[in-house]
């Protein structure tokens, strides 16, 4: 067993499991490089999975029609032979160069990795919870206002306010209601987009008097030194009510923010894109590559097909870092038995 905080060692570490990060596994795998992927989302697929799973895509070469979800499924099947390891629900926080090249990478949960090559496939940035623009919310964040539940026990015997009407809001309402001292769900309308089954369960709890439902929007917070004592809710009729609470969980969906990538010492164009060299899609730091929506070069197009091309060229250069003594022979999947063996078809 791996001791706590002993780094996971891999050839290549891919930051971001969007379509481009996924396809990178394929191109690396053909060249015998093993990859681990980390994504803050709880599922692979990046924008395709989170923003438009049901929408059509018409411009994947050779695929006249697919959907965001369909493309992710197909990519997952395509990379299966290479057995990539996924670390989902984790944010890559820091990267540190410890060799030539060799990197040590840490996630927000404290997982450590050591990789010879880093591939940043961070797209439009990491998906992060939307923060409601309630004046003065900042000092409460992380102390009594939380955008995610890491440990349920934090909310035991608390007067809890959950804000939102989607699945996260309803799921956490049902999970935390039994342990909270009192729970109030605040939503702007008496209609919920969450799964009907959860909505029915919530309504039953309200009918039993086991929790409260308040229709309205939170407009102000009360308390001090980061600890909430109450929140003002404006009802749909405009009437203001103050609800006592000692913790609040707002669930307003996700938005893409560049996030930790900005702190990795890489130059950024217009504050958000990583310039790369178009021969290998390497950044100005040897061993760190950037592919997909996150990179910039003259003529860059933010298209999935461009990201796929970038992944193929990246893998050629990455090979020399991972296997410095080996010579790379160019091969086609159509005719190379050695490639077909790797794909499990020969």
């Amino acid at each position, binding site marked *: 067993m791996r001791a706590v905080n002993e780094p996971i060692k891999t050839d290549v570490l891919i930051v971001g499991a969007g379509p481009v990060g996924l396809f990178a596994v394929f191109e690396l795998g053909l060249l015998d490089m093993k990859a681990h992927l980390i994504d803050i989302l709880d599922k692979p697929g990046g924008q395709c999975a989170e923003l438009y799973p049901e*929408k059509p895509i018409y411009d994947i070469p050779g695929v006249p029609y697919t959907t965001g979800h369909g493309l992710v499924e197909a990519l997952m099947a395509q990379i299966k032979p290479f057995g990539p390891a996924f670390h989902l629900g984790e944010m890559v926080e820091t990267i540190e160069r410890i060799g030539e090249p060799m990197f040590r990478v840490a996630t927000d949960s404290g997982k450590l990795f050591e990789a010879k090559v880093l591939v940043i496939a961070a797209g*439009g940035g990491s998906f992060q919870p939307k923060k*409601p*623009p309630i004046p003065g919310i900042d000092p409460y964040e992380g102390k009594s206002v939380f955008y995610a539940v890491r440990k349920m026990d934090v909310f035991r015997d608390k007067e809890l306010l959950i804000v939102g009407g989607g699945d996260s809001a309803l799921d956490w309402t049902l999970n935390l209601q039994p342990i909270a001292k009192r729970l109030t769900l605040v939503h702007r309308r008496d209609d919920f987009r969450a799964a009907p089954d959860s909505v029915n369960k919530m309504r039953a709890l309200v009918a039993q008097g086991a929790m409260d439902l308040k229709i309205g*929007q939170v407009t102000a917070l009360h308390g001090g030194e980061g600890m909430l004592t109450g929140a003002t809710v404006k009802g749909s009729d405009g009437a203001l009510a103050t609800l006592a609470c000692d913790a609040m969980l707002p669930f*307003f*969906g996700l*938005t893409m923010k560049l996030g930790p990538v900005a702190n990795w010492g890489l130059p950024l164009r217009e504050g958000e894109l990583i310039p790369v060299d178009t021969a290998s899609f390497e950044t100005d730091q040897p061993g760190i590559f950037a592919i997909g929506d996150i990179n910039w070069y003259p003529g860059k197009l933010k298209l999935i097909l461009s990201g796929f091309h970038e992944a193929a060229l990246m893998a050629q250069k990455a090979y020399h870092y991972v296997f410095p003594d080996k010579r790379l022979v160019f091969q086609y999947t159509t005719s190379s038995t050695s490639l077909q063996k790797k794909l499990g078809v020969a």
Partner: protein
Amino acid sequence: MAKITYIDAGGIARPVDGEIGSTVMETAIKNGVPGIEAECGGACACSTCHVYVDEAWREKTGEPSPMEEDMLDFAFDVKPNSRLSCQIKVTEALDGLVVTTPERQA
């Protein structure tokens, strides 16, 4: 063409020409109007194109669809005149439309 005026949270008005058949979101992005992010590119999947429709235009722009209403749950400071601008098609009838953008989208 239909004239569309975007008023930002600070009260600055930006009138631009909208192409018939495009959306109020696309017209803003194309003309560099600030205050609309449109992260999902008009897929009704992000709610970062939230606008308030001027009272005089509410009837002509109509009510949000159930899908749009669901997505509005992820917007902030939602009011009865809230709409997602990617879901408002520019038509001749909307020539003169006035919308206000919220203080923050995300």
